[in-house]
């Protein structure tokens, strides 16, 4: 799992000749020091398939990473098990700072609560969290539910008759729905789909009455859907007309947070440096604009504040998990 692109400069002939040896010397030769970091390309592994929000964020960071460091960020996909395949192998990868992996909340906290997914939340050395997409309850433009109250009234009238699509079971969407059900004291039917794309397709095709998605989903399909409420602290700049759940009297904030981790053995200096690089990308006005246009809310959690941030989130999700019956 080691960086290979440093061989780029070598000719093919030397490559063939030195092939057996190459694997042997590659290890110590790449011993990293923080001074010149990064002096070659960095592998950025996305533990999901291409085209999702994690991928698009990484693609946007890719451009500015190159501007900032002169090195490329190479995006790889390692999909499977809702991220578990990647996360369970992260700590086996080279810890020289040239392999980094995207991590997501609530996934990395919720997954280890069930059956063993091959990693624990504490084992992941997160170094920067850069944004989140607030949960949002979305309906189509011509839906009879004009406001959140319309939907709640319909659900109260006939419990279970309001169908809501979302991505997967025990996911951010499922949790949002469960919290909403208990806060508003209603019963809906949650229909899990494979990914946000499939969930929104079901909404657009009128297969379901509403969808749990994110502000990003609404931004992406702004001509066809509208949001009833957003689970953020303040209204999203892109949607000044959409109320937050808090305004409507439901104490609900949350969403999908995205960040990056390194293998556990990575040195403190390099981890710190990586955290700085991604903080800087996050400050770039052009980058901020692009991210906000896509519906993300930028946050900036550097390496030093990570433990406190994770502890706070863990506590929140633990409570939800207890309500959902994932843990006793």
């Amino acid at each position, binding site marked *: *799992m080691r960086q290979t692109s440093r061989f780029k400069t070598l000719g093919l002939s030397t490559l063939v000749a030195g092939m057996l040896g190459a694997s042997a010397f590659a290890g110590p030769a790449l011993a990293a020091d923080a001074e010149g970091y990064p002096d070659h390309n960095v592998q950025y*592994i996305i533990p999901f*398939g*291409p*085209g*999702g929000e994690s*991928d*698009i964020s990484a*693609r*946007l960071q*890719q*451009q500015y990473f190159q501007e900032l460091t002169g090195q*490329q960020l*190479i*995006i*790889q*996909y*390692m*999909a*499977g*098990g*809702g991220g*578990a*395949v990647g996360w*369970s*192998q992260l700590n086996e990868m080279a810890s020289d700072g040239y392999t980094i992996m995207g991590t997501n909340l609530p996934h990395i906290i919720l997954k280890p609560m069930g*059956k*063993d*997914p*091959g*990693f624990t939340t504490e084992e992941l050395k997160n170094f920067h969290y850069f944004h989140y997409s607030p949960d949002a309850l979305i309906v189509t433009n011509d839906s009879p539910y004009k406001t959140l109250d319309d939907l709640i009234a319909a659900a109260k009238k006939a419990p*279970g*008759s*309001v*169908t809501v699509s979302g991505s*997967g*079971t025990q*996911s951010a969407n*499922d949790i949002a729905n469960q919290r909403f059900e208990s806060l508003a004291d209603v019963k809906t*039917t949650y*229909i*899990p*789909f*494979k990914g946000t*794309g*499939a969930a*929104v*397709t*079901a909404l*657009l*095709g009128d*297969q*379901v009455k509403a969808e749990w998605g994110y502000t990003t989903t609404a931004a*992406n*399909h*702004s*001509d*066809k859907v509208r949001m009833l409420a957003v689970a953020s602290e303040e209204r999203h700049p892109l949607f000044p007309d959409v109320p937050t759940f808090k305004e409507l009297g439901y104490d609900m904030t949350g969403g999908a947070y995205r960040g990056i981790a390194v293998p556990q053995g990575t040195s403190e200096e390099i981890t710190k440096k990586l955290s700085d690089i991604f903080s800087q990308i996050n400050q770039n006005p052009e980058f901020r604009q*692009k991210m906000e246009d*896509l519906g993300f809310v930028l946050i900036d959690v550097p390496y030093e504040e990570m433990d406190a941030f994770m502890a706070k989130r863990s506590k929140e999700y633990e409570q939800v998990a207890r309500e959902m019956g994932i843990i006793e």
Partner: protein
Amino acid sequence: METLSFMAAALSPLNLLLAVIGVAAGIVIGALPGLSATMAVAVLVPVTFGMPPEAALIMLGAIYTGAIYGGSYAAILVNTPGTPSAIATTFDGYPMAQRGDGDLAVTLSTLSSVIGGLVGALALLTLAPLLAQIALRFGPVEYFWLAIFGLTLISALSEGSTLKGFIGAGVGLLLSTVGVSVIGGDIRYSFGSQFLLGGIETISALIGLYCIPVLIDLVATPSAHLQPPEKGRGIRLGEGLALIWRGKLNAARSAVIGTLVAILPGAGGSIASLVSYSEARRTSKRSERFGHGEPDGVIATETANNATVGGGFIPTFVLGIPGTPPDAVILGALLVQGFRTGPEMFTTNASVTYTFIGGLVIATLLMLPMGLLIGRYAFKSIVSIPKALLVPSIAFMTVIGTYAIRNNPFDVVVMVALGVIGWVLARYGIKPSPIVLGLILGPIAEQGFVQGYLIGNASGSVFGAFFGRPLSLAIIAMVLLSVLYPVWRTYRARRLPKESEEARP
């Protein structure tokens, strides 16, 4: 007229050059098992950041088209689908190559791919908004019935015993449930292993089930892998054109099926080509020859899978929902470039969209000369390479290809293990194709069924959800037709016992 001028912009020297490079790279990548169109496109995305959006899209589209076409080489020459879209190409392509007609099969696949690609691009140009609305009508229940329709292929795919075919499909369906389930979030059949969490990767299963048995039987005897072709008969373009003309109805039908299946997000090229293969077989006068090197089989699958390229862009552009996995990557690239998908793709951004479609047409046409050239070379080298070098080369390709799908060494172990199991099962009469069919259709059938049930339950009538919608009734009718038609045909054949006696495969 404006549309035409936009499309003509694709003819600029830079765009043409990018299309040529894209198609060539795509063909090579598609021909290598494991390197899929998705990966080819993903690798190129950062390169396109510095380009004008039209040029970037043309290059991505060209790579994609080339890769889907390139998948047929590995299917024909080594019985391994280079991309999942080429599964059905192995059914008749490889038998053709075995008997020395590999050159003809490659020529046929080239011609068919060009036809399919053009039909798909034409649909994207003219019918996109309309077809996108049809795609939205497809709910979970329709996907469920579509999967059931796909499973009716079992009887067509299982040579010999249909009963064993059903068992094979069942094994495939069970394999598809391994890993974290979408519905319920359970970890199923992983037996405590973290490696099985991600489930069995379809492409690695394909490589294992189709390619490893070929390798195993290859080392067992000193005889040649493929019959060498007669000397000096070129690329057999004339013969190929004649066969295409004979199968023109088949090609047209397959192209339409390919386009229609591709607009359904979640179905994809493999299902498109399998469905058109079975339709070709069902309606053909020579249906008993399918699976034994029937040119019409190659025509059907290759037209269908290249039609999915244009077809898949329909929901991507109109709805912002990727029709196929490579579309998902291209959609991401579009978003990064600052484009918003939706109706404005055909209004405000029309210049980019139509230039892209023009580029797609050009890339498709470029496949003809380039494909014939590369194809001829590929066939010749596979035939002439000594066995002692062919075996390690194929083995190397399968190992590195499987690894590269998701950079996971354990996938290689799964690939080899499935290959060995598949070889043993094939000796006892369970062929790989029903297993693969189950593996591909399993998730669609399962999710469609549970989601349909939940939605039906919420609306008060589960029966109504599954049997009360016009679109599902239409698919159910197709299921019944494809189950009952062979029965009726056998019945009629018994009534009129003529020379059909010896036609038994």
